[in-house]
């Protein structure tokens, strides 16, 4: 794993951008772009990242960005990818779509799935803050069971769609599931993905102080606790082979114990209903255990 001091000093996100204070998404994109470098084109559908860029006539990202409609990241990227191929620059320039969980799990899955099926040459990042952040925290397909959102005010009653596994099962060459709490892993993951040809899907778990309702300074803590408690599993699939990553690997191998789920849940305002309802809590835990089982079966351990 890359050392902190080896991380490139170049920044591709300008100071004074419009993210909320303590935003996990900006930690994530900072290090993803460090790995990809400046020779990268980005396309961004409606999501927090379209706000984070700031206001016309300035932009907080220092690479070319095509902002595009909410449903279209996979499709807009397909057009850019085709154009780069026409120009003979598809090997030289990295192409990345950067979309939220709503723009991926919900309204963007079709364009993404189509792009993957066509073996489009690009990296698709889903940065998952588990709700529609831009519009004020409505339920998304990624919102965890039991979580408050403004459209599930008494807690969501469905489990998260297993999006990354769905993408992996498309048979794409690379799928990675990581977290904003581990920037070095982000860097390494993008470094690896950069050199693979075809559709690469990377999902980053994004602690979001605004939506999850915890103090801004706890972003890294919340990200780590999600992994440490097993609520978020980090893994990758290269070719047809699944593998656990980082802390999740240690957990899967029994080298470390999972922390109690409650350690992660309690500090977050969005889980206040879940906390009050043992039945819901049990169902949430059941969902997590099921995820671990499925993932362990896929990894083959």
């Amino acid at each position: 794993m890359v050392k902190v001091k080896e991380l490139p000093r170049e920044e591709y996100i300008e100071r004074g951008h419009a993210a909320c204070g303590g935003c996990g998404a900006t930690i994530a994109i900072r290090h993803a772009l460090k790995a990809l470098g400046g020779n990268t084109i980005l396309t961004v559908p409606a999501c927090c990242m379209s706000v984070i860029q700031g206001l016309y006539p300035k932009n907080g990202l220092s690479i070319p960005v095509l902002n595009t409609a909410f449903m279209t990241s996979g499709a807009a990227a397909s057009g850019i990818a085709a154009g780069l191929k026409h120009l003979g620059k598809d090997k030289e320039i990295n192409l990345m779509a950067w979309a939220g969980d709503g723009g991926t799990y919900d309204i963007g899955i079709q364009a993404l799935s189509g792009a993957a099926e066509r073996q489009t040459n690009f990296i698709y990042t889903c940065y998952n803050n588990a709700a529609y952040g831009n519009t004020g925290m409505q339920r998304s397909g990624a919102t965890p069971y039991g979580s408050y959102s403004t459209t599930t005010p008494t807690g969501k009653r469905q489990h998260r769609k297993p999006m990354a596994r769905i993408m992996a099962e498309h048979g794409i060459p690379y799928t990675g599931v990581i977290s904003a709490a581990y920037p070095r892993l982000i860097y390494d993951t993008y470094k690896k993905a950069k050199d693979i040809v075809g559709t690469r899907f990377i999902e980053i778990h994004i602690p979001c102080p605004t939506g999850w309702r915890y103090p801004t300074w706890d972003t890294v803590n919340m990200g780590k606790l999600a992994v440490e408690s097993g609520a978020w599993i980090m893994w990758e699939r290269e070719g047809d082979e699944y593998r656990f990553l980082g802390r999740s690997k240690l957990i899967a191998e029994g080298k470390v114990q999972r922390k109690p789920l409650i350690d992660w849940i309690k500090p977050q305002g969005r889980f206040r209903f879940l906390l009050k309802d043992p039945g819901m809590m049990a169902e949430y835990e059941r969902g997590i255990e099921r995820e671990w089982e499925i993932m362990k079966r896929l990894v083959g351990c």
Partner: protein
Amino acid sequence: MAKLKRKPPSHRITCITYPEKGAMGNTGDWRIFRPVVDREKCTRCQMCWMYCPDAVITMDEEGIPTFDLVYCKGCMICEEVCPANAITRVRETEAKE
């Protein structure tokens, strides 16, 4: 409003924007707390630099973090991740005095 390095005619054709600091203004204005580093305690590990969501930390010649207060939003992640407890928060109102 915003001052631009350059403003070619594209601007007048469609919504083109250029990379520049302060796309959301001087976000240092948002700060309620300000990070302050204790140069003695700092071990130069760069964790604060790595985690700063606003990329406002630079390590100075001595490897100690400096904060671009024009843009630092005061989220205090740096304080939280600093393994040496070298960063502390100061209320902005007090800091200004």
